[in-house]
């Protein structure tokens, strides 16, 4: 099978990967980079489990070709916390009971982090709209709204945390 060579920037590190031309961002982060926090729930763009940030915007990893994101900054759930310090959204999800089985959780968190970085004080409608592409079978969403509110409130009182990109350049190879 023909492979293409891509240079990707994921969570602040540079990677050089050889993949099929049809490989998606989800394929690359999970199977090549072993960043398994991003989940595959349908592989068809219907569940939102695979949401990652591409240049700060929430994108479905399963519908985005890896080749499309060359030169972009890709962020996955693994980069949401800082060291051991959870992001306010992560703490709020854990505290409010917004994660049950947890399988949808990384996708929701990435979607919400994109929302809050753009819209620090979203209206309930904006929240609903933002997460409308993410599916959760466990919670009925009620506790997610609570968690998002709580995190937004906390982030407003705390100085904004600019994602620090590590200057370290990691290069890894891999194939799929």
């Amino acid at each position: 099978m023909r492979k293409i060579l891509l240079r990707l920037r994921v969570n602040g590190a540079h990677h050089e990967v050889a993949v099929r031309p049809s490989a998606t961002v989800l394929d690359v982060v999970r199977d090549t980079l072993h960043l398994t926090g991003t989940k595959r729930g349908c592989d068809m763009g219907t569940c939102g489990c695979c949401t990652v940030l591409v240049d700060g915007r929430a994108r479905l990893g399963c519908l985005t070709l890896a080749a499309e994101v060359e030169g972009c900054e890709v962020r996955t759930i693994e980069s949401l916390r800082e060291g051991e310090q959870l992001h306010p959204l992560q703490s709020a999800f854990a505290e409010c009971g917004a994660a049950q089985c947890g399988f949808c959780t990384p996708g929701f968190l990435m979607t919400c982090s994109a929302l809050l970085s753009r819209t620090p004080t979203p209206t309930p409608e904006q929240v609903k709209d933002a997460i409308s592409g993410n599916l959760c079978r466990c919670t009925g969403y009620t506790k997610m709204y609570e968690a998002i509110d709580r995190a937004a409130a906390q982030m407003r009182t705390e100085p904004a945390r600019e994602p620090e990109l590590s200057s370290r350049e990691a290069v890894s190879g891999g194939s799929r």
Partner: protein
Amino acid sequence: MPPRPRRPRPLSVVGTSPPRLEGAAKVAGTARYVDDLEFPGLLLGRTIRSTVPRGELLGWSMGRRPRGLHVVSAADIPGRNAIALLEPDQPCLVRREIRHAAEPVLLLAHEDRDALASVAVELRERPRKAQLDVRASRSFCKEILIEKGNLSRGFARADRIVEGEYTTGHQEQLYVETQGVIAVPEKDGVTIYGSLQCPYYVQKALVELLSLPPERVRIIQVETGGGFGGKEEYPSMIAGHAALLALKSGRPVKLVYDRSEDMLATTKRHPSIVRHKTGVRRDGSLTAMQIDVLLDAGAYVTLSPVVLSRGVLHAAGPYRCEDVQILGRAAMTNTPPNGAFRGFGAPQTQFAVEVHMERIAEALGIDPLELRRRNALRPGDTTATGQRLGADCSALPCLESAVRRSRFVARRRAIEKHNAKARVSGGPLRGIGLALFFHGSGFTGAGEVKLASRAALELTPTGARILVASTEIGQGTRTILSQIVAEELGWPLSRIEVADPDTREVPDSGPTVASRTCMIVGEILRRCAQSLKRALGRMTPRQYLAKNGPLVVTEQYDRPKSMHWDDVHYRGDAYGAYGYGCDVIELEIDPVTAEVRPAEVTAVQDIGRAIHPVLAAGQIEGGTAQGIAFALAEEVVMRDGRMANAQLTNYAVPTPLDTPPMQVEILEFPYGHGPFGAKGVGEMPIDGPSPAVVNALRHAGLDIRDIPAVPERIAGLVDSMRGAAT
């Protein structure tokens, strides 16, 4: 009478809502689910399935085989070609007879995903005439008859007889993580890592399939992305497949379904047809209930007899009636077998009885609320099986609380005014509906005695470690069991650890199903904690271990002495305890698209004691969302015995946009034999929403008796209603 509830004592851990124990890993993305695991030399598995709903397998042929391809057929099975559960009728792989579409025939494994996908397999199948109509099927895998009093006497006392038929469709569990396992061949056996609810079910199945002793079949549950019953029995099948491939290839094999295969091949909620014939007096009291329940079991028995059992035991709803007859049958068809799904037969039968109650009120011209008040079970009343209910029977308090909270009476009046105008103007119609329901916790009848579940606590230098086979599938098992143990020991939660469910490490505490984990396993663990406390005396764990060496206390299920059940005649105490609930749902119907928008939900549920109020509310909210969608949206379209919409794009599970705000209230009428009074909570929330929705539609003027009431079905009714109004 059951024993009096223990006097409440002040609690310090139970009743609080700490973050769930594995919550940090889940939000950090470090929780490892089965597809996240890697093993050296890992192969990927693929399943080749039948294409006809009934027929014979004559043979198969395969195109170019890539190097390193492993193939397994029925001939490779070392033990019995059957999935051991209730009946050994379901083969692990088709040998000759095909009984449903998507039945597994061949297994392939290869290390490269693309190479595996490229293998072309052609099955030679000789189709035979399939039975796809459950009403026409004459093959029943189970019949149950419940009789109380004398039906003809009851009908003779009635002023009116009200009859009706109600149907429900398939429903897909749609756990967001699809089914998956990894099988690793060992020197003398196999280890399974899987997304599953019941490690010991899988072990039992593999022991028979592989002809190995239990100690050589090790089952480890890994973090599981939802189950809802769907990972109760099906994992035995997929684990069997992966194990066969692993043993044949000598390498670890990962088998993870994609969404479409999961929807096509795995079990769903049983479709039902329920008929009611009810005798009522003018004042609304029920004099006779004759109920006929028919479930579509699908092509193999799986758990259908037990689903039917729970279905008939809840078929009369939480209502008092002295003369009752309930006949239940589960019929075989050539569709993929149906199985466990949250509620397990009870949502189907309580949908029927609650919509029927609404129609009885209409027939008598009385307020449906009054009808329920008059007939709701009270302490001291008996159920259809003659079970006398104790002080924790809370149907009326649930009803009254839900009515108060939702301002049901005032809202109903306002909506009627609104609809009178909307009928003329063509604006959206509104409706408000209510449903009263109950749900037995734990296994049916003598089931818990037969299970004889065990749980254990191991003393650690800093506290205690829980050893149970009960699995965390999102509902909070780890956290609530730890709370129960910590509370009983008087220790902070941080001193309690939970072992992974691994059949090599933990005793068989029964399956994680039937709302039994908290009430049954939790109580066994509470007794373990009691024994541990006694053994420790005044010593600290460290002192004890230094002096006496390791300590593991194990306790077994202990039947409450007052509980008796006759499985032959279906008489007696069907369940240890019942939770009760009342849902009120308000909704709006779009006059153009016939789309129904639930606007507000009030759910009041008595669960005995909320060990962890936030997690308990989470169960209620999630179950309620699933229940609403069961009534309005989730339609499995079967075409020639095969799911035609096996994709998330055309099977409509509720998104944030479809899910209304919910107001949840938890009531606590403690059960004397549950830990700190707890009853079950997992399943009950899905019983009420579908009848509440349909009763709200009825309030808006739509006579619906079949669900899902998808827009195409509602549109016709809206049109004809408009026609009648103008």
